[in-house]
């Protein structure tokens, strides 16, 4: 199917977003969008997902939409355009920045409009909104306020400011992550960098909770990143974390971690497992291997001698990294979620051909919803897929 041509009025509208956007702050973004959408005679309302990806909150007025079970949520989760309820010509269109899911717009057109060409324009417009939201959110608190269904703890606020976006895709691979409980996280974190064919991944779990744990994690993230940015190998990254943690704290605190480097030119995957639950490799949709070699004590504990492990990642493979807050989440009867259940669930969900971030959202929410009472520990999931089709599915 050839996509419909973008009408000139929509190109003008995108140009206005760019031009007028230079001097627009986060609190005026909704106004800017409405004004620009007047050119193609459309009405556009922006909704942002909350941190938990459960609710879509309007940027200006209007009621929030639940992600589960609403047309707005369907557009958000599947990254497809969805017709809104009611007789008017209105559609929910996903907003992403790159492949990071930010929310949806509700777009309304005049009755006589041709939906195919209007939607082609609107998708381009929504793409520009995605970039603007990301660029502008740093300059004020308005967009953050909209995205929070409740206040964060200071530790969570600090930690989120240190994390990369949840999702990134290149034409051939996708990395996506999720972290719970969003408003109270402390010691868990994930990190990645994607430079050409080199994907560098990390998942961390610091001892303890709250701000103490967040400070340990922040120290680790800083040490590993600065070493990574000078091209350090896996052992150097781990060594930098060891020195930083031991230099900063004298109570033997530590961070369990997996550090991994994936080279998409030949699929070579090297990793170090620093006392962390072993990531699971899925091949042809089924768990094939766990990354339980390359072992050393947690970061911050004297490592002794160890060697990074190596395996061959193949096109189509998925790698799932997680923290023990996922597998040790307890239900009402006190039973832990467990690795077997996580693996079975991941195998099931992967058959649905959802966008990777949606696969992870479904996994995380199953764990959280099954849990009795407030979570005792942070839970993090990171999924890497080497698949052009998977990378495609993450784009609206």
């Amino acid at each position: 199917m050839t996509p419909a041509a973008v009408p000139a009025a929509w190109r003008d509208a995108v140009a206005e977003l760019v031009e007028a956007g230079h001097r627009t702050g986060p609190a005026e973004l909704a106004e800017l969008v409405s004004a620009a959408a007047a050119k193609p005679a459309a009405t556009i309302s922006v909704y942002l997902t909350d941190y938990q990806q459960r609710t879509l909150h309007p940027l200006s007025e209007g009621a929030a939409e639940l992600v589960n079970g609403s047309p707005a949520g369907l557009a958000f989760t599947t990254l497809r355009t969805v017709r809104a309820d009611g007789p008017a010509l209105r559609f929910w269109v996903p907003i992403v920045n790159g492949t990071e899911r930010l929310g949806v717009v509700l777009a309304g057109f005049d009755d006589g409009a041709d939906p195919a060409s209007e939607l082609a324009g609107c998708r381009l417009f929504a793409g520009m909104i995605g970039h603007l939201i990301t660029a502008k959110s740093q300059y004020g608190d308005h967009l953050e306020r909209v995205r929070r269904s409740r206040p964060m703890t200071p530790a969570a606020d600090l930690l989120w400011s240190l994390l990369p976006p949840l999702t990134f895709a290149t034409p051939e691979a996708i990395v996506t992550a999720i972290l719970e409980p969003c408003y109270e996280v402390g010691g868990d974190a994930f990190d990645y960098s994607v430079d050409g064919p080199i994907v560098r991944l990390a998942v961390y779990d610091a001892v303890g909770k709250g701000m103490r744990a967040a400070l340990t994690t922040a120290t680790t993230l800083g040490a590993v990143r600065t070493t990574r940015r000078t091209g350090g190998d896996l052992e150097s990254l781990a060594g930098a974390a060891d020195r930083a943690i031991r230099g900063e704290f004298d109570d033997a605190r530590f961070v369990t971690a997996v550090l991994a480097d994936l080279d998409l030119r030949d699929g070579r995957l090297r990793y170090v497992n620093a006392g962390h639950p072993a990531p699971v490799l899925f091949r042809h949709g089924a768990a094939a291997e766990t990354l339980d070699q390359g072992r050393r004590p947690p970061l911050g504990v004297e490592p002794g001698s160890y060697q990074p492990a190596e395996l061959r990642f193949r096109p189509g493979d998925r790698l799932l990294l997680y923290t023990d807050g996922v597998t040790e989440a307890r239900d009402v009867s006190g039973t832990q979620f467990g690795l077997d259940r996580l693996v079975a669930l991941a195998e099931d969900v992967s058959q649905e051909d959802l966008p990777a971030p949606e696969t992870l959202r479904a996994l995380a929410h199953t764990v959280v919803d099954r849990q009795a009472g407030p979570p005792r520990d942070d839970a993090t999931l990171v999924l890497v897929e080497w698949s052009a089709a998977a990378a495609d599915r993450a784009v609206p």
Partner: protein
Amino acid sequence: MDTHVEMEDAILGALRSGAGPLVVDLAEVSFLDSSGIRALLHGREAAIGRGTTLTVRSPQPIVANVLRLTNVAGLLGLSSS
């Protein structure tokens, strides 16, 4: 819940009063999380700082498993496999 704090205080107190080498008997410990491991490692470092040692013994299987998965069993004097 915070029994690891008590354990840590007991270990550090014993070291301060000149005790050592220390052996921590884990036979009665049915649950050990990362905070408990940190308390043991802290005790171990303090012991080394005072020229002595700290090891653990008799962990229940579930606790031994946690120490192995975290890759600190060897540091605490258990076999690491």
